[in-house]
């Protein structure tokens, strides 16, 4: 299979043997295998030559599968167990959290934001750019009309955010019902379609990925929390993941996130496979 082998691109320069997965590549006999500490990976088929030494911890997968068939999200330098590249919520949302926090500050501190935007210090620190995407006008509205008139708005083209007084209760509130001192969370939303969103950002800056195209938020008829449904995968999630519920704390559980498939069955967001109700990946805690 030389057509897909890296040998086809070898022009004689000294070869970097540490390519995929941080494992040294062995080219003896032109086999092109990656020699991890615990077993050997066939780089052309993406399968291990030996069975998984920790087979019991991934019993739903073939013992020859590598990185849950997702070498972008996982690495497995020892050959025993794939590791995700950082916390599920962490790496993929870096930067987005900062943007949401900026929005949060602009809306909760409109006077300071506007003042900073037009001050020499503000220009120097590029704060004008921070607020000029759209929420500047909303912040100005806050100052002009008062906080009670405001619930959310447009962040920049295609992106919206909503101010809430709690993760779920905001949904049924109308503009004018929210008092800024009660604001506790920001929902930052990229509006790919009406009512869809990319992330829900909690007041503590935790960004919760929402399946692509999922619509919401909807509040429950009974109980508490919020839900986005009808999407599919994205942001490191398996395509079978169609919805997410962000649940408020109850007397036995803290705030948590629950990902689901189209049948409303709890799934592991990374694999899309149904899991036990006791499985911790079905109840991801949030701050």
């Amino acid at each position, binding site marked *: 299979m030389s057509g897909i082998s890296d040998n086809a691109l070898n022009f004689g320069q000294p070869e970097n043997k540490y390519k995929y997965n941080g494992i040294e590549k062995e080219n003896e006999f032109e086999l092109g295998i990656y020699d991890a500490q615990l077993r050997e990976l066939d780089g052309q088929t993406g399968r291990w030559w030996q069975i998984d030494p920790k087979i019991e911890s991934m019993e739903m997968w073939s013992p020859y599968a590598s990185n849950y068939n997702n070498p972008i999200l996982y690495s497995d330098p020892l050959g025993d167990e794939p590791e995700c590249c950082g916390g599920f919520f962490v790496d993929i949302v870096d930067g987005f959290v900062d943007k949401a926090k900026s929005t949060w500050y602009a809306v909760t501190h409109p006077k300071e934001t506007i003042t900073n935007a037009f001050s020499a210090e503000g220009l120097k620190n590029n704060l004008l750019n921070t607020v000029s995407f759209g929420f500047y006008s909303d912040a100005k509205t806050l100052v002009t009309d008062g906080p009670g008139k405001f619930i959310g708005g447009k962040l920049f083209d295609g992106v919206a955010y909503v101010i809430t007084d709690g993760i779920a209760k905001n949904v049924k509130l109308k503009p004018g019902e929210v008092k800024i001192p009660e604001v506790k969370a920001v929902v930052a939303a990229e509006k790919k379609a009406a009512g869809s969103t990319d992330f829900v950002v909690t007041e503590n800056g935790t960004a919760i990925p929402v399946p692509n195209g999922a619509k919401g938020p*909807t509040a*429950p*008829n*009974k*109980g*508490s*929390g919020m*839900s986005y*449904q*009808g999407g599919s995968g994205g942001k490191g999630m398996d395509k079978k993941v169609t919805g997410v*519920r962000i*649940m408020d704390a*109850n007397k*036995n*559980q803290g705030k948590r996130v629950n990902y689901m498939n189209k*049948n*409303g*069955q709890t799934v592991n967001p990374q694999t899309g496979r*149904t*899991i*036990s*109700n*006791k499985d911790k990946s079905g*109840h991801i805690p949030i701050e």
Partner: protein
Amino acid sequence: MENPFIVLKDQQLSSVVFIQDYLQLDFDGYTVTCYDWPMVILLDGKFAINDKEYRNVLCSLIAKKVNEISFIEDEMLSIGFQSGEKIEINLKNANGEVIYFTTPEGEWSSI
């Protein structure tokens, strides 16, 4: 909404789905996901999860029509069928969410 399950009246139990360690009862699009195993009450006896015939009797209710719903908060949800059988879900001493209920319109409840 005090009793979100009232919409189940006159619906038939269309399918019973066992998922890992919990259960889904589908009533033609209205789905009751039970995270604790319900009790099945037939005319001649009660069946719990550890009973050998539990799954059979649960599935024997498929296609039967609901005629009575009783929901007492923090106590019990009872789904009664025209033929006299009942499915009872205990809500006492719940350790977290016991029921996730969805409608074909996308509405939901968490008990």
